C-alpha cells in the first residue's frame, strides 16, 4: 500500500472501503477447477481443501495419493489452504464467489457455521450408498457432527489436549517420570523443583496456541463451564472465575509464561511443560529426537476432577454438487476415514484413530507397545467430552474466549471482570445462532 501521489492516495482511500469486497475475491485462485464440469470420460475430478502443514501435510498428501492409486473412477486434488482459520476464511470467500471446493477439512469451531448456512450437505444417503459402517466410528466423535438426526461431516483428524513434559528436566529436578496427577501437585511440588533445576533461560510451563481449547479442559477441572447446552454463558460464574484465577496466579507465581507458540517453545527446550494437541505429538517427537526425551500424560486434575475436551477436524462435502461428485466425494471420505488408513494416519500424526477397528487392529496395538506416548493419548480418549457450545457453536466464540484469556494471562486483569465481559459478549454473539437453530428446527 504505497500512496505516494495524491491521486494514488485518494483512490486508495476509496479502495479502503472495498477491503471486504476485494478480499472476498482473493484466496481461491486454486479452486478454478472445482466448478468445471467433469468430463464424461475419465475419472470424476474433485478438489479437496486441507489444512495440514509440515509432517501432517505429508501424511495428508499420502492419504490422497493412496486414494487416487486405489481406484480409477475418482481423482482427488489436494490443496493446502493454511490453518483451520485461514481455510474457513477462504471457504467463506469461495462460497461468495461460487468457486468452492468439493470437500473441505473443517475444524471443531468452524463446521457448525457452515452447517447453519446450509453450505455443507448431509451425508447419510451417500454413506448408505457407499456402505460406510457408521457403527464402527468412535461414537462420541461421530455424534458430534449429527444434527437433527443427520450427519454433516465425518471425523478425520480428531485430537484431544495432552500434557507434554521434558523428561530430562524432570530427571534433573529429581521428579518421578510421570505427568502431575493434579494441578495442586504441579503448582506446589513439581513447579518449584523444576524451577530450581532448569537453566535460567528455561521456564516451567508455556501457555499459547489454541488457548481457549486448552482452557476448556481447565475450566471443567475446576467445575465450571463456558456455557450450558442452551447457550447460557456460565464462564463468569464463581467456578469459572476460580479457574481464571488459577491461570493468572500461574503467571504471577512465575511458573507459567504466555507465549505465541507453545509447541515451538517446547521443541526448543525453553518450556519444559505444555498442554497441546495429540496432533502435535509426532512433530514434537521428531523435533526432540536426539535432543531430549518427551513424556506425556493425562491432563492434571483440578478441584472438580478430570476434564478434557475433544477437538480437531472433520471432513465435509460442500452443498450443491452434481450427484456423481457427491458420491465420489463420499468415496474419498470413506477411504480417508477407513480403519486401514486411519491406523496409518494416526501413527504418522498423533491424531486419534476415529475407527474402533483401527484402534483394535493388531498394527495399532503393536505400535502402541513401542510408543507409550500414543498409548497415553488413546487411553485418555474415552475420558474426553464434547466442548461447550460457547466455543464451538458461537460465531467467533473461540476468538472471544482467547482474547479474554489473553487479558488475564498477558495483562493480568481480574478474571471476575474479564469473564463477565466475555460472557456478555458471547451472549450477544450467540443470538443469531439461536435464531438460526430455531429456523432449522434444532
Amino acid at each position, binding site marked *: 500500500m504505497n500512496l505516494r501521489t495524491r491521486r494514488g492516495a485518494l483512490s486508495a482511500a476509496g479502495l479502503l472501503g472495498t477491503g471486504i469486497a476485494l478480499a472476498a475475491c482473493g484466496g481461491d485462485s486454486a479452486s478454478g477447477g472445482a466448478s468445471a464440469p467433469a468430463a464424461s470420460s475419465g475419472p470424476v475430478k474433485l478438489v479437496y481443501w486441507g489444512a495440514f502443514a509440515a509432517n501432517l501435510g505429508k501424511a495428508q498428501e499420502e492419504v490422497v495419493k493412496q486414494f487416487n492409486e486405489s481406484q480409477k473412477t475418482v481423482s482427488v486434488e489436494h490443496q493446502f489452504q493454511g490453518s483451520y482459520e485461514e481455510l474457513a476464511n477462504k471457504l467463506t470467500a469461495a462460497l461468495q464467489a461460487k468457486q468452492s471446493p468439493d470437500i473441505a477439512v473443517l475444524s471443531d469451531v468452524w463446521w457448525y457455521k457452515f452447517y447453519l*448456512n446450509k453450505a455443507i450437505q448431509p451425508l447419510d444417503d451417500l454413506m448408505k450408498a457407499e456402505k460406510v459402517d457408521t457403527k464402527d466410528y468412535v461414537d462420541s466423535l461421530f455424534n458430534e457432527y449429527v444434527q437433527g438426526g443427520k450427519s454433516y461431516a465425518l471425523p478425520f483428524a480428531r485430537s484431544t489436549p495432552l500434557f507434554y513434559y521434558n523428561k530430562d528436566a524432570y530427571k534433573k529436578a529429581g521428579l518421578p517420570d510421570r505427568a502431575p496427577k493434579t494441578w495442586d501437585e504441579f503448582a506446589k511440588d513439581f513447579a518449584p523443583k523444576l524451577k530450581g533445576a532448569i537453566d535460567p533461560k528455561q521456564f516451567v510451563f508455556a501457555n499459547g496456541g489454541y488457548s481457549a481449547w486448552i482452557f476448556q479442559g481447565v475450566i471443567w477441572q475446576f467445575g465450571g463451564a463456558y456455557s450450558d447446552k442452551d447457550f447460557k454463558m456460565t464462564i463468569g460464574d464463581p467456578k469459572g472465575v476460580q479457574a481464571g484465577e488459577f491461570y493468572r496466579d500461574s503467571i504471577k507465581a512465575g511458573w507459567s509464561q504466555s507465549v505465541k507458540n507453545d509447541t515451538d517453545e517446547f521443541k526448543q527446550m525453553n518450556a519444559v511443560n505444555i498442554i497441546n494437541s495429540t496432533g502435535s505429538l509426532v512433530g514434537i517427537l521428531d523435533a526432540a529426537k536426539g535432543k531430549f526425551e518427551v513424556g506425556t500424560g493425562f491432563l492434571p486434575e483440578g478441584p472438580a476432577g478430570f476434564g478434557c475436551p475433544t477437538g480437531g477436524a472433520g471432513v465435509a462435502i460442500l452443498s450443491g454438487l452434481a450427484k456423481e461428485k457427491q458420491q465420489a466425494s463420499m468415496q474419498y471420505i470413506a477411504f480417508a476415514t477407513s480403519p486401514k488408513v486411519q491406523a496409518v494416519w494416526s501413527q504418522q500424526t498423533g491424531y486419534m484413530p476415529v475407527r474402533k477397528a483401527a484402534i483394535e487392529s493388531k498394527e495399532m496395538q503393536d505400535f502402541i507397545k513401542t510408543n507409550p506416548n500414543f498409548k497415553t493419548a488413546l487411553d485418555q480418549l474415552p475420558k474426553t467430552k464434547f466442548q461447550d457450545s460457547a466455543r464451538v457453536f458461537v460465531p467467533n466464540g473461540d476468538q472471544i474466549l482467547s482474547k479474554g484469556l489473553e487479558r488475564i494471562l498477558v495483562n493480568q486483569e481480574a478474571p471476575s471482570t474479564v469473564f463477565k465481559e466475555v460472557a456478555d459478549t458471547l451472549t450477544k454473539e450467540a443470538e443469531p445462532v439461536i435464531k438460526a437453530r430455531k429456523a432449522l428446527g434444532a
Partner: protein
Amino acid sequence: MQSLRVPRPETTLTPPAPRERSRDLLLFLAFIAPNVITLSVFSYWPMIRNLWLSFTYWDMIAPEPLWVGLDNWIEVLTSATFWTVLRNTLVFTVGSVGITILIAMALSLLLNQKRRGRNLVRAAMFAPAILPGSAIALVWTFLLAPYYGLISQAATGLGMPMTRWQNDPVWAMPTVILVVIWKSTGYDAVIFLAGLQGIPRELYEAARVDGANAWQRFVNVTVPGLSPVAFFLTVTSILASFQAFDIIRVMTGGGPVIATTTLIYQVYSEAFVGFNAGRAATYATILFGLMLAITVVQIRMVEKRVTYE
C-alpha cells in the same frame, strides 16, 4: 479538467462548430472513461456498498445480509474496544509518521553533504522501502525472538530482563512502530534529498552575505524550502499509516489482546476473523471518514503555511 482538453491548433480562432464540439466531448469522455470506470467499479461502488453493509448483520455466508439499522454504529461507538483501537491508531500514526519524518530530514541533510561513499549509503538507506512489509516483519521477528534473537541476546547481555517484545502489552506497539520507521525512513529521506537539491543555491549565498549563521540559514532557507516536500510526505504517510497492515499482521496479529490493533486491523479482524461484515463495514466507514477529514484539514489549513517557490 482544463489540462485534459485537447489543444486546438491556433488557426481556429472562430468558435468551434457544434459538430466539432460534440467530437471534443466524445474525445474527452474517451480519455476519462478508463479511470472513471475502474474507479467506479473498484472504489466508489464498493464504498457505497460498504456504507450500506454497516447497517446490516452479515456473516458473509448467508445469502442476504440482514438489515439492522443503526445497531452496528451504536454498538461500535459505545464499545471500549473502539476507543482503544482509535487511541492505538493515533499512537501508531503519530509515532511512526512523526519520528520517520524527523529522522528522514536529519538523514537527508547529512547525505546532502559531499562525502565519500554517499551514493552507496543513499542506496542502502533506500533499500527497505522496496522490500515487502511481510518479509521485513519476519526478519524483525527473528531478530526480536526471545532467547535466541539477536536483539534479545544483546538486551539480556546488557542486563535487561528477557522481554517478549511482540507479546508484551507495553512493548508491542513501540516495537511495531520501530519496524515501520525502519522501513519508511529511507524513502522519506530520498524525497527530502530531492527537496534539498531543489532549493536554489543563491538563497544560501544571499543569506550568507546577509550574515546568517548555519542555524539561521537552516531555519530561514532550508525549512521553508523543504516545506512542500514535508507537507507531501506528511499527507501521504499519514494516509499510508492508517492503512498499514502487513507488518502488524505478521508481527503481532494485533495483539497482545488488542494492544497493536489499529482501525484498519480491526476492520480485518471483524471481517475475516470474526466474520461480522456489518461491524467491519462500520469500522471501515469510520476509518474512511477520519482519513477524509484529516486530508481536508491538511489541505485547507496546513498547506497555507507551505512555501512554494
